């Protein structure tokens, strides 16, 4: 890189969180190996950088990386915020690279999504380049074709006209051979699988036009006549490539937005060795039977069994339940759930692909392969349409060869060009891409454009409860002081006391109390202890004991009987009791997402059937359904149960949509006709859903359905226009009244009309 660095980083011990990067098993996620020019192994790693706020930072990071002994090259991309480093495995390690970046004032993480992003980039580049070649040549060819259009008879010398035709031919060659290549390969593939796809009529149209125009160029007196249509052909190819490029771009943008979640520091686990020592290892290295220590707040690295210690576990990623589940020694633990109670030791039983998480992903993939697919209207029409067009052209040629042989071929070409399915080919993709772009601006990422068609025909919506209609957290709804005394005079005082004690805990109820309590803490707490399954125990400034937690346990501190409480059943309750008898009760409800009731109301008015699917208890599900006015509520549903509900609805002939967010919603999301995932949801749900509601707003569901209905209306308008245009022009062409130049012009105009109409879908 540069030979004049001002400092050379010395080899230091890496901090524990990045030491795991040196594990070869982890390295293969972000490192490529190759043989350098001198025969030694060279590693190329891609790192994701953070903290860059301008392009000059790229130079600083490059310097820092180049200063590490063993680095042969370091390139930083300012726009992509990635670093590509070539390093010698004998002299340095990835942890040294990250340390060097951190010392420069930035941060780096391994870039596991690099291969996929490279592929996308290469794909996008190629598509754009093809489009550029086609458009550039199209402009030149149109320029060269203009004299033949505007010249009156006898104004254009034949030699000059010939020269113009030759030049047009030369400039159409790159378009045909390079830019239009995807259409020909597509036609080849669909013919090989014996299906007629959209590429077949397009490729035939391009080929026939080019061949006929070539014949007219080099043999003006021959059967092809002397009219050339290179301008129509290049324009046609450019339009189609533009539509396809927009589609590709929209798809890639959505994929990129979701992939950012894949880049994270590799997980580590603390393995307990037989002699009592612990070591930090990568999660990928765990084997069944080993013992692992899991700290407070850490996620469990594998499926296993709790060996010793008692704790509470947040299994929300699996069940969607916001209440932590108490675990005792011998209970099973699920990989990915979060340890909330106390540090514990776990025995590993299943790792990697065998964990329940992966099993759900596999179930979902299988459901996806059986997914009812909705063929595109245009694709279904293309087959018979193509045969009809070819038949008509052949018949026209046959009839005209009897009437006036010199015009026979051009009549056939006119028929082919004028019915050229570019309006059909553009009608659907242009509208879908415009709609997806408009939705993306409003915070909804459409990952599968076909889904917009399905969305317009939905009858029933299945909606998950936790995380979709409600936020993941609880909200303080009611507070009552049941026994007031000097320390607990008012509700506000009780809340302040409770919130200050709750600050010592990470329990979701504590988080909710903290969110609600705004008053400053009345005193400092000492000897705070969190008892798993019960609550918090602490002493105040005067040394009096307080307890915040489960009712019986908390009230036991005052040795008085717990007061009777006639308040309605809340989703969760916590009690604050003092040794001297003061007692207060706080009730929590799951917070509804903002806009949830308006969204449900709007959906109901629009005639959709709404069902609530939840893994939570049946009566909580029923209560929420009644509150929001949903038609049906199914509580206590397992992933298989949810799948059965959806399948039953599909059997009844309904088209169903599913809105969910948790990992155990993923199989249902795959099975439903349309799936929408919350932006905050589990990665596997987001990655497979048709649409991701990035803003987490239930009103976006209403938006998406409205846009999809409007888009399908626009698509139908486009198809009707294409049909009317064909019905009007084909008889004219058959009768020989439509010269090919007019056919080309008509085709171009029809394409433009279709695209302009499609752009309306973006609004």
């Amino acid at each position, binding site marked *: 890189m540069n030979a004049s660095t001002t400092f050379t980083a010395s080899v230091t011990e890496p901090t524990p969180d990045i030491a795991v990067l040196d594990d070869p098993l982890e390295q293969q996620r972000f490192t490529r190996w190759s043989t350098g020019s001198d025969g030694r192994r060279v590693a190329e790693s891609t790192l994701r950088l953070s903290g860059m706020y301008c392009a000059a930072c790229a130079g600083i990071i490059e310097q820092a990386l180049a200063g590490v002994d063993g680095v042969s090259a370091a390139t930083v991309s300012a726009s992509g915020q990635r670093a590509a480093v070539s390093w010698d495995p004998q002299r340095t390690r990835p942890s040294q690279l990250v340390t060097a970046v951190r010392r420069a004032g930035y941060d780096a993480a391994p870039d596991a999504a*690099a291969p996929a992003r490279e592929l996308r980039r290469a794909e996008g580049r190629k598509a754009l380049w093809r489009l550029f070649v086609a458009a550039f040549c199209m402009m*030149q060819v149109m320029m060269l074709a203009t004299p033949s259009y505007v010249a009156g008879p006898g104004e254009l010398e034949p030699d000059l006209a010939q020269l113009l035709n030759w030049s047009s031919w030369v400039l159409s060659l790159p378009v045909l051979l390079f830019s239009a290549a995807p259409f020909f390969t597509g036609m080849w593939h669909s013919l090989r699988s014996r299906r007629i796809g959209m590429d077949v009529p397009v490729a035939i149209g391009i080929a026939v036009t080019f061949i006929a125009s070539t014949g007219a160029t080099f043999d003006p007196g021959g059967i092809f006549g002397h009219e050339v249509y290179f301008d129509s052909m290049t324009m046609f190819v450019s339009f189609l490539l533009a539509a396809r490029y927009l589609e590709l771009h929209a798809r890639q943008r959505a994929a990129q937005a979701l992939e950012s979640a894949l880049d994270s520091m590799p997980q580590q686990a603390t393995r307990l060795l037989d002699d009592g020592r612990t070591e930090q290892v990568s999660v990928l290295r765990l084997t069944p039977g080993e013992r692992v220590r899991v700290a407070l707040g850490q996620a469990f690295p594998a499926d296993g069994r709790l060996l010793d210690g008692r704790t509470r576990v947040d299994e929300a990623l699996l069940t969607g339940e916001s209440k932590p589940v108490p675990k005792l020694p011998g209970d099973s633990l699920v990989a990915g759930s979060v340890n909330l109670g106390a540090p514990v030791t776990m025995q590993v039983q299943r790792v990697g692909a065998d964990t329940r998480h992966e099993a759900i992903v596999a179930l979902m993939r299988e459901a996806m392969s059986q997914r009812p697919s909705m063929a595109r209207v245009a694709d279904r029409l293309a087959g018979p349409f193509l045969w009809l067009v070819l038949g008509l052209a052949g018949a026209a040629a046959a009839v005209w060869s009897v009437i006036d042989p010199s015009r026979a071929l051009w009549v056939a070409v006119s028929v082919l060009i004028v019915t050229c399915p570019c309006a059909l080919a553009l009608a659907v993709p242009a509208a879908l891409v415009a709609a997806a772009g408009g939705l993306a601006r409003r915070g909804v990422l459409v990952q599968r454009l076909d889904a917009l068609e399905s969305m317009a025909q939905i009858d029933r919506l299945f909606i998950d409860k936790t995380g979709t209609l409600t936020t993941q957290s609880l909200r303080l709804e009611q507070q009552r002081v049941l026994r007031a005394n000097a320390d607990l005079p008012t509700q506000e005082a009780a809340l302040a006391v409770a919130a200050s004690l709750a600050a010592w805990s990470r329990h979701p109820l504590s988080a909710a109390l903290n969110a609600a309590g705004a008053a400053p803490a009345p005193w400092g707490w000492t000897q705070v202890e969190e008892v798993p399954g019960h609550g918090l125990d602490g002493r105040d400034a005067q040394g009096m004991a307080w307890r915040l937690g489960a009712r019986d346990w908390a009230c036991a501190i005052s040795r008085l009987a717990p007061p009777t409480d006639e308040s309605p059943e809340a989703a969760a309750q916590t009690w604050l009791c003092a040794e001297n008898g003061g007692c207060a009760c706080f009730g929590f409800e799951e917070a509804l997402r903002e806009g949830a009731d308006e969204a449900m109301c709007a959906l109901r008015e629009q005639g959709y059937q709404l069902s609530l699917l939840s893994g939570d208890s049946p009566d909580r599900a029923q209560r929420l359904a009644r509150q929001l006015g949903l038609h049906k509520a199914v509580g206590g549903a397992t992933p298989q149960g949810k799948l059965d509900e959806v399948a039953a609805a599909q059997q009844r002939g309904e088209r169903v949509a599913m809105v969910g967010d948790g990992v155990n919603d993923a199989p249902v999301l795959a099975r439903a006709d349309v799936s929408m995932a919350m932006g905050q949801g589990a990665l596997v749900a987001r990655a497979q859903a048709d649409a991701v509601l990035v803003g987490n707003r239930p009103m976006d569901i209403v938006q998406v359905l409205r846009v999809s209905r409007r888009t399908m209306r626009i698509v139908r308008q486009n198809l009707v226009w294409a049909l009317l245009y064909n019905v009007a022009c084909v008889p004219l062409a058959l009768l020989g009244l439509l010269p090919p130049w007019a056919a080309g012009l008509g085709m171009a105009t029809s394409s433009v009309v279709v695209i302009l109409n499609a752009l309306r879908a973006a609004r």
Partner: protein
Amino acid sequence: MEILYLLIPLSTALVLLILGIFAWALHRGQFDDLDREGERILQNDAVSVDADQTRVLQRTEQSPTV
């Protein structure tokens, strides 16, 4: 109008040349990170290109474009 007999083939050749040059620049990676190109002139320790461009070739081959 005889000049057109020269100009038309010339413009065709020019179009093909432009496409070729563009393709060469794209293939060499000149459009990969446009933000940094403008700043290269301000850096006093930037890579100096040697006569047969082997160092630049190595650089674009070794590090995957990001």
